[in-house]
């Protein structure tokens, strides 16, 4: 067994940057006060949270009051959908949710739940073969909205499974023409390019800190001023009543530190990762027959390579790669042995011979050329083995 481990699953999680850890450490056992408390301990914690809020707002070009600290991407996505929907419910407004078939489950499942529990009408905009929403399709989905109601469009910024980036500013402008508000799940975005809330022209935006070398259990929801919002995470006055619960002070401090680093370093890291990624993609396309690159060939996350291999079980491949010390993932991956065809691969039009055979290799700061060489050496063999694995069975 290979003892040299190669981690190519940075879209799943990244290691905490040591500088971020240093920033967080004092807030575990030294400055442990509750940010709502009146005394000096509380003030210290509150200052840390509010400094973090300033930092996040500055690097994302929005107002500090628009930043809501959450427990991560899933909570942010939940609040982004539930907050406006709950408000609309109190006003008796008809609710329309418009989303895509390639959203993260945090959005997709929440939208379906709101259809079932809040009576929201759910419209799903198709995507093209790269997983992108077109202006025309979005326009079509925005026709005949009930008047005086809430229409909320939720579009993934950068796809976790296939890496494709959506043209968010263009799509957001269209949605606004029809009076809809726009959420984007930008969980995969930081560190890979600019992320300017004003330029994106969205009303709600979700982030998850551990995707950009920050801590797990921390994230951000941006709620632009003027957006009607009644939280589903009720409690005390934290986050201006938009997210109850004692502040995760170390997590919030770490989020700000990590996001600032991501925003400052992407111009350097993104081209390096893109070059390594291109070598990886070319190498795999050359070496492995019956392979497709999934997602947009050019407009995709720089460290993101994703493939579909015909007639292959993605889970089996992941297992074989793990045995060779390569950590990867797939859209249909399931560690409880109940894999389903990937809905994302289905949505981009792949047939059943492809949709169980997804593989995602996502690069990060620690990825080297030697890692890429190791994968190009091992992967073709493992794919051959995995393709041979399901034996014919006859009784």
């Amino acid at each position, binding site marked *: *067994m290979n003892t040299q481990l190669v981690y190519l699953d940075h879209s799943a999680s990244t290691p905490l940057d040591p500088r971020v850890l240093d920033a967080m450490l004092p807030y575990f056992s030294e400055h442990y006060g509750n940010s709502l408390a009146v005394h000096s301990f509380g003030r210290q914690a509150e200052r840390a949270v509010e400094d973090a809020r300033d930092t996040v707002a500055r690097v994302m070009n929005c107002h500090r009051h628009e930043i809501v600290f959450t427990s991560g991407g899933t909570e942010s996505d939940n609040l982004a959908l539930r907050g406006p929907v709950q408000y609309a419910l109190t006003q008796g407004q008809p609710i329309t949710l418009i989303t895509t078939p390639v959203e993260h489950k945090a959005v997709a499942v929440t939208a379906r739940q709101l259809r079932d529990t809040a009576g929201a009408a759910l419209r799903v905009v198709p995507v093209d073969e790269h997983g992108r929403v077109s202006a025309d399709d979005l326009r079509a989905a925005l026709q005949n909205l009930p008047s005086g109601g809430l229409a909320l469009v939720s579009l993934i910024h950068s796809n976790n499974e296939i890496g494709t980036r959506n043209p968010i500013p263009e799509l957001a402008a269209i949605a606004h023409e029809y009076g809809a508000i726009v959420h984007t799940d930008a969980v995969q975005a930081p560190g890979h390019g600019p992320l300017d809330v004003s330029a994106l022209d969205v009303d709600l935006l979700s982030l998850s800190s551990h995707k950009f070398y920050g801590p797990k259990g921390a994230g951000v929801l941006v709620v632009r001023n003027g957006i009607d919002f009644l939280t589903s995470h009720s409690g005390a006055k934290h986050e201006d009543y938009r997210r109850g619960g004692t502040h995760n002070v170390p997590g919030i401090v770490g989020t700000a530190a990590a996001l600032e680093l991501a925003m400052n370093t992407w111009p350097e890291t993104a081209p390096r990762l893109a070059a390594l990624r291109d070598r990886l993609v070319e190498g795999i396309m050359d070496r492995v027959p019956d392979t497709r690159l999934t997602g947009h060939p050019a407009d995709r996350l720089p460290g993101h390579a994703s493939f579909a291999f015909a007639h292959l*079980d993605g*889970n*089996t491949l992941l*297992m*074989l790669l*793990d*045995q060779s010390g390569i950590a990867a993932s797939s859209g249909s991956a*399931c*560690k*409880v*042995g*109940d*894999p389903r065809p990937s809905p994302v691969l289905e949505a981009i039009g792949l047939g059943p011979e492809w949709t169980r055979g997804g593989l995602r290799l996502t690069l990060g700061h620690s990825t080297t050329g030697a890692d890429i060489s190791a994968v190009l050496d091992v992967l073709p063999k493992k794919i051959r*083995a*995995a393709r*041979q*694995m*399901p*034996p014919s*069975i006859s*009784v």
Partner: protein
Amino acid sequence: MSGGVDSSVAAALLVERGYDVIGMMMRLWSEDCGTGGSNRCCTPDQLLDARRIADQLGIPFYVIDTQDVFRRTIVQFFIDRYAAGDTPNPCLECNRHIRFEWLLNHALAMDADFLATGHYARTQYGAGGRVRLLKGLDDAKDQSYVLSVLSQDKLRHALFPVGDYTKPDVRRMAEKLALPVAQKHDSQDLCFLADGDYRRFLAEHAPEAIRPGPILTRDGRQLGEHTGLPHYTIGQRKGLGISYHEALYVLTTDPAKNALIVGTQDELGHRGLIAGRVNWIAGDTPLEPFRADVKIRYKARPAAARVSPLPDGRVRVTFDERLNAITPGQGAVFYDGDECLGGGIITRVDDDAR
């Protein structure tokens, strides 16, 4: 690894002996898979247990999706055989087609040398590299019966680490290793049933297999009506719902007429059986009839018999004493003392040998 005591201790023993161990679990089809119900062998609970134990032992752990192939082969086989009037033993078929083919192939493709399971059985290498299959040391737990379908090329890759121990030993080892499953109950045979009730399962999944029909005597007199052949077992006395001047027993079934054949105690039992789909563990079919102890069910006591290979590949088994519960569909497994010689699937009783 099933998450149970036996396979967990098997893995622990191998790690202790210095093997490079990979934990694997098959996700099998089960009726209420995916509904969050109280199904057994594929519940997330079992899975979580197995994964935690693997982690505790410091070995990787993978779950192989076996649902489709298991449903298409084993579950369908179970339904089809019942519909044809047999009483099938799906565990035999699972070992033949799933565990020691599907899973073994996965293991070999991962460059494994052996597939180890938590079965109570032993292997022994004899002259010329032949592998012998022996009963587990714990006679009460012996599972060689369900392994009687294995050939030499499978057994060469098989390890049964707990076969050298008794169940109480295995529980003690689990406790000593602080495995969280030490006190878990033994698993049941029909892992794909939500509630262990195969009659309800058949009624839902194969209603055509459960049709009411006549209860007949051997000479064709109708005494009543049965509720469906799978509801009865051969040798059964109670629950026939007919009054008669003598106690009546289920003698056999007649699937062609969908009839249940009953008779008195002295009509019960047969001296012989014919078995097909025979596997000889040593590889070669014996040329001559031989004496053996034969088990006609997993839990049956071995019965002394003469086993005669037939020219068409089947075997005729002639018992020294009459046996009451010879049941088509079950395995007839041959033993020489502790050694399992192989076995076949009972196709019919053999009245010529009466």
